């Protein structure tokens, strides 16, 4: 037996830490914004690689996005992922979570047999945590969301997931979809060799294509009515600026730290909350 077929779903998101591409009115120019691997997906990637290392198998990374999203697939390759698929198609524009889950469902089926699908808990640009469970529904799979520990014993998955005010230990069979919480182990640094190999690959498009395949909706046989704007039941009907409560903040600046702190302590009730000392 050749081990487990492990899939990991990753997404490229705008880097919120960078000021590039942030318009003066606060909206985002996604074309100019700095791009990065969704931070939550780093935990999913770690879970996938750790599972491969511990129990054997291959890791396939899957992403959906415009052509630059290939960057995040290259990044997963550097960390030790075996192959990647990028679903890229203009008809996917304006997909909400339901349409995204449908497109990923078709992509996963196209990518072949799998035992475990790891996803990040959520993305930092959408923040919904919906696509993982929606994909599991399409695939008819059991799911483990908010997973913070994952292992396989006697062919069964043993995992720990976060619940409100506690944790739950669960056991299930494969195939299964897992969304990984950020209390899972952080992603290990990529090896120099891995990074070097991928850098070499990236120079030769022909060879790279053996590892990362870019596919579109026709290739995966998706119903285009269920993708993009058309396949999205929700729309953003209106946006409004959040009112600023400007002017009410009493600013303390320009003095030495001890003076600034003294001003604030004097002006507020901060001392009332202090630990009572005998």
């Amino acid at each position, binding site marked *: 037996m050749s081990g487990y077929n492990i899939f990991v779903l990753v997404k490229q998101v705008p880097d919120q830490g960078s000021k590039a591409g942030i318009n003066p009115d606060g909206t985002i120019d996604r074309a100019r914004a700095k791009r990065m691997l969704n931070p939550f997906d780093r935990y999913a990637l770690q879970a996938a690689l750790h599972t491969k290392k511990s129990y054997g198998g291959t890791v396939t990374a899957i992403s959906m996005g415009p052509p630059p999203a290939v960057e995040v697939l290259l990044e997963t390759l550097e960390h030790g992922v075996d192959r990647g698929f990028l679903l890229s198609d203009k008809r996917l524009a304006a997909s909400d979570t339901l349409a995204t889950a449908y497109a990923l469902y078709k992509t996963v089926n196209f990518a072949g047999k799998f035992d475990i699908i790891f996803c990040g808990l959520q993305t930092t640009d959408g923040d919904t945590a919906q696509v993982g469970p929606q994909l599991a529904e399409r695939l008819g799979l059991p799911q483990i969301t908010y997973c913070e520990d994952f292992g396989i014993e006697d062919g069964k998955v043993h995992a720990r997931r976060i619940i409100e005010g506690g*944790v739950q*230990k669960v056991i299930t069979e494969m195939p299964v979809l897992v969304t990984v919480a950020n209390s899972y182990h952080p992603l290990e640094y990529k090896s120099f060799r891995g990074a070097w190999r991928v850098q070499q690959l990236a120079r030769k498009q022909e060879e790279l294509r053996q590892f990362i395949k870019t596919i579109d909706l026709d290739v995966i046989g998706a119903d285009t009515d269920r993708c993009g704007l058309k396949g999205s039941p929700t729309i953003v009907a209106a946006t409004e600026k959040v009112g600023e409560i400007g002017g009410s903040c009493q*600013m303390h600046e320009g003095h030495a730290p001890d003076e600034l702190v003294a001003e604030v302590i004097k002006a507020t009730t901060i001392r009332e909350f202090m630990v009572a000392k005998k």
Partner: protein
Amino acid sequence: MSEPESEPLAVSPFCPKGEVLVVAEHILGELQPVTLELLGAGRILADKMGRSLLCIVMGENLGDIPQKMIEYGADTVFVADHPELKCYRTLPYRRVVCDFLESLSEPPHTTLLGSTTTGRDLAPRIAAHFDTGLTADCTELDIGPYEHKAKADPAKIGLYPNCLYAIRPSFGESLKARILGPWKNPQMATTRPGVMVPNKPDANKKGKIVKIPVNLQPDDLRLVVAETIREMDKGIKLTDAEVIVSGGYGLGTADGFNLVRDLAACFDNAAIGASRKVVDLGWIPYHNQVGQTGKTVRPKLYIACGISGAIQHRVGMSKSDTIIAINKDPDAPIFKFAHHGIVGDVYQIIPEMIKQLKEKKVARGVEAVVGSH
């Protein structure tokens, strides 16, 4: 918003009928507060449309929970009682809710769940099953009209007099987005615990309790819960703390939280909070996160250390009684809504604050003695 000269649109045939449904949540029989909040929000939506408020409760031996749902606003409570439902699991709960929705002659107009680890696990499964829209982590819910004119999808064109307005902050922007999907039933939304306000319970309120069938399939039982561990004793809960000291990206490193902890240790009943960015970076666990995708808090005192004050953070803490913000960027958005802003380096300000708080204690004692003479 329609212009007076434009032709009035015909009411769309997709216009949702049905009632408002709340999916209740409990952990081993312990009702989750978000359920009461959803009943409060759901009651307002139902009353606006003159419809009734339904609630579905799943579990085993639920005791007085169904009655409580009525006291908090539900008109009809549907109870699914089954040993396999004792503990929340995705597939059995999904089966019961989907079967129940399919059994109704008219699907609900709106279905609400909490944005908890349970609600965020269950809601997307139901939404995907019915191919309907779901809006996560709403900060406001409302009912209102919508005229759909987009030519791209002519079938949907029309007037929708009663739409669910699911309102949430949009990514990285100081904007609130109103999200709609009235052409699909049910319209679904989740809200964070602490955001909506429960009704005062009314012991005289009348309502119906209806048992519903549970038909689980063998496939629904593929996952078993081996153990549920409650972590009650892990310090003071963020939502219960009087004082919250929060750290953000301005701390520079994960070690910066030691400083935050030191400051928090000066206070009684204090907890540590964090912005999303530093949770994403793994500097501090998720359960410390304050904001739209974290906890919503209303402490008496909130001290934000090196937090810029993005909208996602703000919606989770702006209702704190007193907000003190420390940030070296005088243009940081947090200074737009904090009560006191200190422009400075957290590594200078926090140690100074700790020092003065400890000193002041003594100084005040001396003053008091002097004053009594």
